[in-house]
């Protein structure tokens, strides 16, 4: 049995990019929301559930995504799993957000 995608210890890989770009606002928000959803008083899901959601991403998504991008997809999946949001309302809102940017070019 081969290792799952996240289990990458010992796998061949190239040189380490040691640059430290500043964390973007989007990344900060994902980090903050994930913490607030996970911790008391909300406690919607555990740290282990969050890790499992990240590890369950399709291999091409996992490997092709930035770190907090994976968190964002995992957060979406966990919010649907826990019944906080539905796939349909997320899809609708995502389309609306994209439409808004196309027509207005900026957040409200």
């Amino acid at each position, binding site marked *: 049995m081969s290792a799952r995608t996240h289990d990458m210890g010992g796998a061949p890989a190239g040189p380490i990019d040691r*640059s430290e770009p500043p964390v973007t606002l989007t990344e900060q928000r994902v980090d903050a929301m994930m913490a607030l959803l996970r911790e008391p008083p909300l406690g919607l899901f555990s740290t282990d559930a969050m890790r499992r959601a990240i590890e369950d991403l399709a291999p091409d998504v996992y490997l092709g995504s930035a770190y907090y991008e994976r968190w964002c997809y995992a957060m979406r999946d966990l919010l649907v799993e826990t019944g906080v949001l539905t796939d349909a309302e997320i899809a609708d809102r995502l389309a609306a*957000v994209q439409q808004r940017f196309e027509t207005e070019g900026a957040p409200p």
Partner: protein
Amino acid sequence: MTTAHRHDRTHAHAATADHAPPGHEWEFLEIALRELLIEKRVLTAAAIQARIDAVEGATPIQGSRVVARAWVDPAYKARLLADGNAAVAELGYGFDGPKLVALENTPARHHMVVCTLCSCYPKPLLGLSPAWYKSREYRSRAVSEPRAVLAEFGTVLPEDVELRVVDSTADCRYLIIPLRPVGTEGWTETRLVDLVTRDSMIGVAPARTPQTDHGTDV
């Protein structure tokens, strides 16, 4: 927002560009999820911002203070090595949840930390982890060719120094106590704190030496 910025998505990664348009699909998803969570009163914008501020304020200074204390106080160091969580709590630093294991570098043995499975890191002591710690390259190679990885960080470990790589998990985090630099005999604890870099507590670099202590790297 100027017209010129409207379709210039390269700006999405500027950390301070609060109103730059998203440059990637997932950044729209972040907006959609956040709006829905706020509308449904699951979260508030104020709580999200407060959390961001708290994370931004976290630096490796607490870890540096723990190490400096261990350097000057052998009894404290013994307690830190025996029970990391309790020892950092003595200094007023909360480390709840995962077990905290402190490991001491010696002239004969060096330790470095990785999380091969994800990004586990002693955040309460060191702040947010650097991007490279979470990278595929570091996670993969730290356990298969650690000396080569250390060399990329400018740390060339003599062959006769044993190297132990420790793999963090959700339940166990590591803090490395780097070697106290020579030439710091008689230094105060406060002065020593400045020598204890983040990278030295991850184990990819030694502590600063008195000669290099002019303080721009982290």
